[in-house]
């Protein structure tokens, strides 16, 4: 009996000491580790927060952007007071408040093909917290060249993805193995353009920190997987088994089997040229018969004139402006509608009228009985919609709001929720 007790006590002691050792050596490893976080935005902020809190000894942050008010819904290290400040400096300040012993190395220049290796060579692990495809390819290639694991996060709307590329290194695939050809730039939207629920970048950024901590402390099992998160799904997390490194990959492939060369890649050109700047496009002046400034629309509304607003994003506050009717987002997506507006205009049944939100539409003449203004988030979809309505021969005043609800918030109503 005594013997058993003795044994189990020893066992317990051993277990405790094992845990202690793991934690202690883990903490030491974290202190001695260095991590480069590229992008101090929606993913970078939560990742930095947990890396700093965990006590990672040296953290590099690379980003050339400055803090904007519309960033604050997801970029949780920045504050109202630091709007206009470089994101990396704002993040560095936040980290100092969390753990003043961490050495933060902020870099305010953009990551390019010519500086990537120099900027990243001095770190054990690289975190891809960027928001665009050319930089993702550049980071992947650089991580392969430097023999570093790349903990990559991405998020859009309600979805997120997490993957460690070049895991091993030389075992798991790189970004190029998985996606040898980039999709068209039109398909590659950023958070700023497509919108995102801040907590989604929070989930993925936090997981990036977790994966980095596992790599540093030796707790990662080394198997390449891709984690997909979709906030609205009944089962929001799905982890999938990934292929191994592609021997023919021009980036990480085996030397004599590589197909194609990376060399002096122009990453932007490789990804199909400059991504369209949807914010700028939504702000183009346009023809005065087709577009109206937010301020002008406000003035018009204040005169008490009956107008119709077709709002594809969220309902305007009708009471505030005593406007005649407000039609919130229709049941039919704008893109389906503009693909064939006639199909939605030609019949007189109630559904089609509801679909485009024009109950005063006179189908015989295709003339709108009230001046109609279309508004969307940035002012791109609404331009297409106006064009579609005109193309089927609709007469009357039909215009869209330059810069959409963003412009409304900027020029008319500062309290209007920006997203």
């Amino acid at each position: 009996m005594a013997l058993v007790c003795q044994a189990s006590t020893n066992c317990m002691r051993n277990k405790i000491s094992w845990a202690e050792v793991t934690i202690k050596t883990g903490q030491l490893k974290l202190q001695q580790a260095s991590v480069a976080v590229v992008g101090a935005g929606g993913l970078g902020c939560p990742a930095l927060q947990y890396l700093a809190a965990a006590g990672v000894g040296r953290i590099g942050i690379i980003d050339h952007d400055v803090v904007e008010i519309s960033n604050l819904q997801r970029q949780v290290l920045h504050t109202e007071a630091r709007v206009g400040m470089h994101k990396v400096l704002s993040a560095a300040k936040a980290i100092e408040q969390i753990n003043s012993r961490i050495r933060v190395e902020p870099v305010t220049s953009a990551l390019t093909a010519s500086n990537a290796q120099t900027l990243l060579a001095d770190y054990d692990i690289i975190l891809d917290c960027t928001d665009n495809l050319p930089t993702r390819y550049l980071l992947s290639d650089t991580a392969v060249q430097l023999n570093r694991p790349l903990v990559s996060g991405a998020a859009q709307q309600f979805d997120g993805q997490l993957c460690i590329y070049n895991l091993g290194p030389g075992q798991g695939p790189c970004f190029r193995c998985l996606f040898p050809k980039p999709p068209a730039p039109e398909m590659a939207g950023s958070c700023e353009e497509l919108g995102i629920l801040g907590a989604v970048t929070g989930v993925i950024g936090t997981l990036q920190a977790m994966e980095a901590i596992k790599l540093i402390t030796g707790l990662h099992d080394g198997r390449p997987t891709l984690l997909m998160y979709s906030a609205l799904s009944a089962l929001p997390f799905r982890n999938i088994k990934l292929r191994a490194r592609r021997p023919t990959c021009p980036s990480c492939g085996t030397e004599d089997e590589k197909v194609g060369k990376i060399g002096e890649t122009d990453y932007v050109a490789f990804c199909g040229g400059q991504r369209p700047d949807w914010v700028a496009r939504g702000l183009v002046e346009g023809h005065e018969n087709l577009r109206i400034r937010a301020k002008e629309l406000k003035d018009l509304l204040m005169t008490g004139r009956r107008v119709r607003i077709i709002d594809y994003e969220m309902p305007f506050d009708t009471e505030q402006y005593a406007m005649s009717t407000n039609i919130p987002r229709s049941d039919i997506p704008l893109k389906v509608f503009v693909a064939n507006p006639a199909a939605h205009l030609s019949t007189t049944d109630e559904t089609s009228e509801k679909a485009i939100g024009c109950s005063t539409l006179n189908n015989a003449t295709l003339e709108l009985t009230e001046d109609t203004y279309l508004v969307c988030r940035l002012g791109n979809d609404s331009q297409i919609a106006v064009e579609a309505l005109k193309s089927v021969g609709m007469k009357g005043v039909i215009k869209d709001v330059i810069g959409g609800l963003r412009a409304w918030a900027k020029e008319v109503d500062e309290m209007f929720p920006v997203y």
Partner: protein
Amino acid sequence: MSATSSPAISLKVEFGGGLELLFSNERSHTVTIPARAPSPAGADTDVHPPGGGGRPADIAFLIAWLRANLLQERAELFEENGTVRPGILVLVNDTDWELEGEGEYVLKDGDEIVFISTLHGG
């Protein structure tokens, strides 16, 4: 032609990363497709030989079938040259399709096939 029903297989098909927008904005679909595809791959999917003709239905056939029967808009954002467009990852029962033979993977009744578009935002 006799109207005898051709053998069919039932699959769970899921779309993610924005692809669901092309499929009625529904992520999850259960589809029943012919168990055999016209041969060779890439032939017209609206006509499928009854009974034993053609090749067993594989993912290449599923892609063509989805394009013809389930896709609602902008086919070029889903399919390109008989396969998925660049930037889409295909999963067979939670495994990267490259480990399963990509388009040549022969579908089994009850398989779960996921099409996911890579995300770039952050």
